[in-house]
């Protein structure tokens, strides 16, 4: 019990004083996971759009496969990436193992199924009438896809935020591809695992609080977005009040 209490006060001290080690680790976490999410969105949104708007044999199987990969274990992705990125692997030439860039790649592989799958369901929640209407107004195929994606923007944003949540909270890829090298690839989750093993509970708790704070910010943003989508948004955006 005393461990927890003293650890908690030590953690507050580390956060309030902006301890450089803690901040460096938190910022690297944000950098890796945000970059992975943004890059994943560049793949997921067009990919989701393509799958949604095209009919091809095996489409249903592909969707089931994507949904199955929602719950792929992070260590399996880590293993796969390790084999691909290690010196003797097919992408060994790039020397991405034990680098933040390798971790970004790993987290992208991890979250692309989730973001793509949720982009797909976001798009299918858009009324078929919308795309018919767009076509009737003279939209090209590409303009139709872009506009339907815009219509689904709130749901797509939630999909990306969820993907970010999975990326920043995972340990497997960060540990196996990053290697938890202090000052280079040590992120919040790997640091917590290590410091807890070393008995440095204060440090771990501080990082845990930061991780939870990030989660809280994510939840708040998501709530703002979804409530905005439902009602208040037009008021904020300057629309006239409903008569």
């Amino acid at each position, binding site marked *: 019990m005393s461990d927890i209490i003293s650890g908690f006060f030590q953690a507050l001290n580390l956060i309030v004083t902006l301890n450089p080690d803690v901040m460096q680790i938190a910022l690297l976490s944000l950098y890796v996971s945000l970059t992975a999410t943004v890059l994943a969105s560049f793949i997921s949104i067009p990919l989701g759009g393509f799958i949604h708007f095209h009919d091809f044999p095996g489409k249903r199987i592909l969707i089931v496969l994507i949904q199955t990969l929602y719950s792929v274990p992070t260590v399996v992705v880590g293993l796969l990436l390790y084999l691909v990125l290690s010196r003797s692997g097919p992408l060994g030439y790039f020397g991405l193992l034990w680098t933040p860039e390798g971790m970004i790649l790993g987290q992208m592989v991890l979250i692309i199924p989730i973001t793509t799958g949720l982009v797909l369901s976001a798009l299918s929640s858009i*009324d078929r*009438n*919308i795309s*018919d*209407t*767009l076509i*009737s*107004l*003279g*939209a*090209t195929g590409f*303009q139709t896809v872009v*506009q339907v994606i*815009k*219509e689904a923007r709130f749901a797509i944003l939630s999909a990306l935020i969820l993907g970010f949540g999975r990326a920043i909270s995972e340990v497997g890829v960060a540990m196996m591809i990053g290697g938890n090298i202090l000052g280079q690839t040590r992120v919040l989750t790997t640091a917590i695992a290590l410091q807890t093993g070393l008995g440095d509970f204060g440090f771990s708790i501080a990082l845990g609080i930061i991780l939870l704070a990030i989660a809280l910010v994510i939840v708040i943003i998501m709530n703002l977005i979804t409530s905005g*989508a439902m009602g208040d*948004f*037009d008021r904020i*955006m*300057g*629309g*006239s009040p*409903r008569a």
Partner: protein
Amino acid sequence: MVFQKPAVMNTTVADNVAFGLRFRGVERSQREGRVRSALEIVGLPHLSSRMAPTLSGGEMQRVAIARALVTQPEVLLLDEPTANLDPINADMIEDLILQINRKFHTTIILSTHDMIQGQRLADRIGVIMGGRIVQVGTATEIFYHPEGRDIARFVGTDTVLKGTVTANEGGHATIAIGDTVFEALTPLRTGTAVALYIRPEEVTLAPATTMLQKTSVRNHLTGRITRMVPYGPFIRITADCGMPLVALITRRSSTELGFTVGAGVVAGVKATAIHVLPVDEGRAHL
């Protein structure tokens, strides 16, 4: 093209109307003016900055019309534009449709299940049954000269009687249906098997006790009321006069004349109100 259920994008009304122009690469400076005038036509300029999904169904439908109109189409397709609207909004949309047609000479093709709406709005009507256009014509042609039994039923003609022309003097024919003789106008010759189509609003009913006055109504039949079905402010009365005749009269007159099921009545139909078609020809054959 305007769909039955208007789909608006989750953005402002003005942006919604501008879509067609944006897709066509019209410059922003031009877009604003054209969007504004399209919104003025449909009477929604005051809502241009509102988020479109917050509008009522009637307003959305008007946005959808403005959105189609802004591209200055030569032909405007409307798929049951009033099907999901209350009568007041439906009236407003109908007025708008007429106004667009008169002002811009836009050809408008609209589908509807509402026969009366078709009569009100259309210069020409095509009746589609079983996926095929079965008759095209003016409202009068469709509703008073339907080409066959199915179309007649479709456009609200309830009474179809089969008989034979027994005499014809210069188009003024006598037609026997069982023991009853009708007078009607037709060029068809004596001996032709025919079907008589009688719209319910053309059938007059009077209590059986009434002394028959001299009117232009030539065909009088006595019978009994077998069925009374309310139909808005009207009531559809089926009278068995040796054959079933359906009449549409106001509820008020029905009450005043004391009509009830079983009451004796005299039914009358003007010779000019009977539409005669030969039975053996074309679509009239059934």
